């Protein structure tokens, strides 16, 4: 895939993911409300329509997965280390892929039942701050920016989630970037992402305090200290 084509594919992937997200959201809304609220004959019709939507949602899901992984996939991008990404050939694209893949796991670990992550937002954010010389400062700037520009939409959060819906975005993005800063040669990527998420949950008061103060330097320092302990 040529470098010039990459932004368009990222946007196309995002558009397909929005379609899937919207369809799932609609299906869940129908599932949760219609059959219970409608009287008997209409309720049956609603259930039948729901089955149709289920099939459509599954088909779209398969289509999005196939397109995203095969037609628009990029097998050369597999590093999730922010340091390695920063010196790679196409750092914005590499970051956007790593950001999307990491956030999927972080959000699921936080109990987000339905969420949407914008890969394009990750790409734009990285392009804006790529000039930063310090990797921890870069991570702090990305955290603040990505939390503010709606790169994540959490529509449904588990009741037992250790974070509130209003605070979940900031904690999730901090966790994702923390996992990209941590290094381990004796643990898998998933184990590192889960550990980074649990650390972010334990540190959420500090993270949110620094986020509200817009304190890049203190946030970078917290990321640096925490990265040693993932």
């Amino acid at each position, binding site marked *: 895939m040529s470098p010039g084509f990459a932004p368009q594919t990222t946007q196309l992937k995002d558009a397909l993911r929005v379609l899937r997200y919207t369809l799932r959201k609609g299906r869940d809304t129908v599932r949760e409300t219609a059959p219970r609220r409608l009287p008997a004959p209409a309720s049956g019709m609603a259930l039948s329509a729901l089955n149709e939507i289920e099939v459509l949602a599954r088909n779209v899901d398969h289509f999005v997965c196939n397109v995203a992984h095969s037609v628009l996939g990029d097998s050369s991008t597999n590093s999730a280390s922010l340091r390695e990404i920063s010196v790679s050939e196409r750092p914005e694209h590499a970051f956007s892929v790593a950001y999307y893949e990491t956030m999927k796991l972080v959000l699921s670990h936080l109990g987000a039942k339905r969420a949407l992550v914008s890969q394009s937002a990750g790409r734009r954010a990285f392009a804006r701050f790529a000039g930063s010389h310090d990797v921890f400062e870069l991570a702090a700037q990305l955290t603040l920016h990505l939390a503010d520009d709606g790169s994540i939409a959490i529509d449904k959060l588990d009741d037992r989630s*250790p974070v509130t819906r209003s605070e979940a975005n900031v904690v999730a993005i901090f966790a994702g970037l923390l996992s990209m800063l941590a290094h*381990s*040669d*004796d*643990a898998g990527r998933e*184990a*590192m992402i*889960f*550990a980074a998420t*649990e*650390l972010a*949950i*334990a*540190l959420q008061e500090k993270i949110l305090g620094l986020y509200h103060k817009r304190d890049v330097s203190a946030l970078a320092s917290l990321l640096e200290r925490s990265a*040693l*302990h*993932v």
Partner: protein
Amino acid sequence: MFDLSRSIHNLPRTNKPLRVAVRQLHWFKAAFHSHAMFCGEAMGCEFVVDDIKLAGAFVRWLESIDRQRPKEKEQRRDFFQFAPSLVLRELVGDLPIKATCPPACVDPKSAAAFWPEGYVAATFCLTVYAATMDQEFHLDVHVSQMVDDLRSWWSFRENANEDSNYAAGFFQLLLGNEPNWWMPSNFSARIRSADDDDRAETVISPD
């Protein structure tokens, strides 16, 4: 009943020195899970670990050792010996583990049956501590007989429920040390002086 050697062998492998690995959540968590499973098999019960609570205890422990770490190099070994007391304090303060049923394979009058969760937490700290002391200083750790003494555990549980700092003192007792019960989780006050004893008697005395 507690077999320290088997418990050490059960720890997950790491390419890093244990003193480093134990301060990384992914290894700490893997080690705690592995120890809980090891104890569960030996005790005949299953344990459920709350990873969020475990991470909370881990972070509080890191903050605590950062605050108390001595500047003098000569105190490094003493601090090594003291740091796991603080882990036990944090684990007992908000236990991240729960037995799903009473242990089936231990004597009902044993320490493990009396407080399975506390037993797992304390033996976890002993295990990681012993493995680290061996790796860093080539020292064998000897655990006091009281590790299986029900009366000590009864006292430990009751006191730690009121004040989790007691757990730090209990850990020192397990290692055969006499803790400073006034401040059992304070490294710089860990050695009790004769003056302290006098003051303690003055406070306790009804006169």
